[in-house]
Every structure is written in structure tokens, then in C-alpha cells.
């Protein structure tokens, strides 16, 4: 017994070394971001404390370009309002004419505005931290967009903060299509440039041109159909002859994220329960 204790004391630093390396390897091997621990991520209490402080200061630096973006967006919205107003006037006349009721379109999507408090673009796996959480009714698997296009998908949620898997993360694949065309592919980041991503598995017969807009397909409940994602830049060479791969330049400027909108779908539980039921029936 005494020998054992002596042995342990003498080689204690080796034991500590082995234990610490094992702990880090276990943490490192949990590769899937859905299994990460909340407290070991930037949405945990320690991470948010530090980043909240710095974002208070950093928020002022990007104001000019955000302002320009907003003004551009404002101008386009104003033009749209005028156009829609004209259209409503026209419809109102038509409705009056044959006394028909307009059916309100279903509006399943709500937006929650959030501020980005931490963001990375240079790592192989990038994440974003936002200052809204469970108490602001944010749940995992909600989509995140900004004024230009898709940003990512919510992953870990604490009471006041949430971590978002950025589009610049190869664990996140987004179902997209070329605007004006129903064939869809899957958009994934290739780890090289924060302005570009690849649209893979696009059927061979798809017709597209360089400069076409890529939009979300709406095949998941996370993003509505038609949110802009990027612009076709070039065709990539692929090994598989049945599919195209396109290089897409992203519309969202990830190096200058500030305010984002989280999309919450009122009917997501309904859609999920249907999908779960049908999966169970299949088995």
C-alpha cells in the first residue's frame, strides 16, 4: 500500500498530464457542434460576459457602413411600398367592382432582432454569438438572416444568449436553388474564403448563368423560400458527371455582421410532429 502511494506521489505529474490530455481529447473529439457543451462555448456565462463588454465598444465602429446598407434597403423598401400601394389601390377598385373579399395570406414567419456580440470568419469552423436567448423565445434550429441574406442557424441557447452555426461552417448545409428554377442543391462552405461557398449536387439539367441569384429552397421549415443567399460566380469542375457544383459569392458580408434577424416559424412544431409521425410510420 505504501509503495503504491509512493509510486503515485513520485509520478504525480505524469498522472496529471495523462488526465489533462484525456480530458482535452474527449472535448476535442466531440466534433458535432450539436453536442458541444453550452458552458464551454461563447454562449456560456464566461464567454458572453467578455464579449458583451467588447461589443458595447465595437458597435460604434461599423455604424457608417451599416447606415449605408440600411439606407439602401430603406430606399428599395420605399420603392416597394409605393409600388404595392398602387397595386392595392388597383385591387381595391377591382374588389369594389365585384364585391369579393380579399383572403389574407398566411403569415407563418416572425422575426426577432438580435445583435451579434461575437463572430469569427477565419477558423475552419465558425460560430456567431447573439444577445438573444431562450427568454426571447429563441430555440435551437431557428434560421438567422441579416439585411443582405442568410447568416446561419441557431445551435446552443442559454437564457439570454445563443450560439449560431455560421454559414461559414462545413457542418451546416443549406438547401438552395437558382432563382427561377426549381432544381435544388446544397450550399456548403469549403473553408477557403469568407465571401464564397459551393453549391453542390445541382442536377445536370439545371439551366443557369453566371450572375444568377441563389435563393433558399424552402424545403426545410427553418428558412422560408426565396431568401437571397449569393450570386453564381463560376462553375467548378467535379468528378461526378450527374451533378453541377457552382462557386457562389455570398451576399452576406460576414466580416461586418452587426444586427441580425432570427426567423421563428409559428407552425414549426406542427410541421415537425407531422414529419416525426411519418418517419415512425415508415419504420
Amino acid at each position, binding site marked *: 500500500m505504501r509503495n503504491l502511494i509512493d509510486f503515485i506521489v513520485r509520478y504525480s*505529474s505524469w498522472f496529471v498530464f495523462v488526465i*489533462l490530455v484525456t*480530458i*482535452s481529447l474527449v472535448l476535442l473529439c*466531440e466534433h458535432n457542434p450539436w453536442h*458541444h457543451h453550452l458552458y464551454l462555448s461563447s454562449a456560456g456565462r464566461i*464567454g458572453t460576459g467578455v464579449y458583451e463588454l467588447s461589443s458595447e465598444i465595437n458597435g460604434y465602429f461599423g455604424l457608417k457602413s451599416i447606415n449605408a446598407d440600411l439606407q439602401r434597403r430603406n430606399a428599395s423598401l420605399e420603392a416597394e411600398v409605393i409600388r404595392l400601394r398602387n397595386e392595392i389601390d388597383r385591387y381595391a377598385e377591382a374588389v369594389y367592382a365585384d364585391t369579393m373579399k380579399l383572403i389574407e395570406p398566411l403569415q407563418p414567419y416572425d422575426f426577432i432582432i438580435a445583435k451579434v456580440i461575437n463572430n469569427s470568419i477565419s*477558423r475552419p469552423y465558425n460560430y456567431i454569438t447573439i444577445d438573444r436567448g431562450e427568454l426571447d423565445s429563441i430555440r435551437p434550429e431557428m434560421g438567422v438572416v441579416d439585411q443582405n441574406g442568410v447568416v446561419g442557424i441557431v445551435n446552443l441557447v442559454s437564457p439570454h444568449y445563443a450560439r449560431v452555426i455560421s454559414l461559414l461552417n462545413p457542418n451546416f448545409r443549406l438547401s438552395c436553388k437558382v432563382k427561377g428554377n426549381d432544381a435544388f442543391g446544397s450550399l456548403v462552405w*469549403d473553408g477557403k474564403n469568407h465571401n464564397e461557398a459551393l453549391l453542390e449536387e445541382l442536377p445536370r439539367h439545371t439551366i443557369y448563368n453566371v450572375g444568377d441569384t441563389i435563393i433558399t429552397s424552402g424545403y426545410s421549415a427553418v428558412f422560408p423560400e426565396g431568401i437571397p443567399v449569393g450570386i453564381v460566380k463560376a462553375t467548378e469542375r467535379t468528378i461526378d458527371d450527374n451533378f453541377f457544383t457552382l462557386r457562389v459569392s455570398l451576399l452576406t458580408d460576414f466580416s461586418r455582421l452587426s444586427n441580425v434577424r432570427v426567423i421563428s416559424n409559428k407552425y414549426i412544431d406542427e410541421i415537425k410532429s407531422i414529419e416525426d409521425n411519418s418517419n415512425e410510420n415508415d419504420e
Partner: protein
Amino acid sequence: MSKTILFFASLFILLTIAQALVFNQICLFGVALPLVFIYFIIKMPMSWPTTVCLILAFLLGLSIDILSNTQGLNALCCTLLASCRRPILRLYFPREEEMSEPEPSSKSIGLAEYLKYSFTLTFLYCILFFVIESLTFFDFFRLIIKIIASTILSYLFILALDSLSRRKQ
């Protein structure tokens, strides 16, 4: 003694926060990432027990991991680096008991030895960090560029930090 502990405690906190808020945001040409927090591991006194050094290095890596969403990566690299510290110092300065003060510095082991010692540790850390990180997208050429560029940038920052703290003393 308590002065040393106070100095290293504040160094730990300052380096962690500075790495998260300043150095992680710097990424020159998309390849050079300054990893400055390892200055703490370079400076830990040789008189401290190895166990304490290992645990402190692990905690440092873990706090950097928390702030930069790299679960376990820096904790592993820091622990490995702390275990290689003594052998590397012996490589350049074999007579450890002749050090005039327990912390490795240009004063205690000589300028040339200190520069070599800190460069070796920085280079080793960059190799460990980028090799483990790039196990997913393996691109050999890019990996080499990243290691070299980050070593140079981190080393410059560490030397700058070193000259600052020396002036203070």
C-alpha cells in the same frame, strides 16, 4: 512570493482577454493568427512543480477555448506545450540550477538562449495547433504557410510583450 503569484494571476487574465478580444480578430492575409497567450507558459517559473504548471496551462487553454469556440483544441495544445517546456529549456541551457531567477528571461539565461527557447516553444505551439485544427480540410501547402506566418507574427508579439514587461521591472 505573493508578488509573483499576483503577477502571474493578472498575466493569465490579461492574456486571455487580450487574445479573445484583440489577437483572435487579427488574421493577416487569412493565414497569420497571433497566438500570444502562450507567453504565460513561456514565462512560468521553473521552480514551480510540473503538476501546477500542467494544470495552469490546461486551464489557460480551456479559457481560450471557451472564448473562441474551439472546444478542447487549445487545452490539448497548452498541456502538451507545458510538458515540453523543461526539456526544451535544458536543450539550450543545460545547467538549470545556475539560473539567477526562476522565470526564464534574457536576464536569467542569457539573451541568445532566451530567444531560442521562446522561439522553439512558439514554433512548436503553432505546429501543434494548426496540425490538429486542419485535420478536417487537409491542404498541405496552406498548412505550412499558416504555421510559418503565425509563428513569425506570434513571436513578434511575444517579443514586444517581453520588452514591455522588462521595462516595468
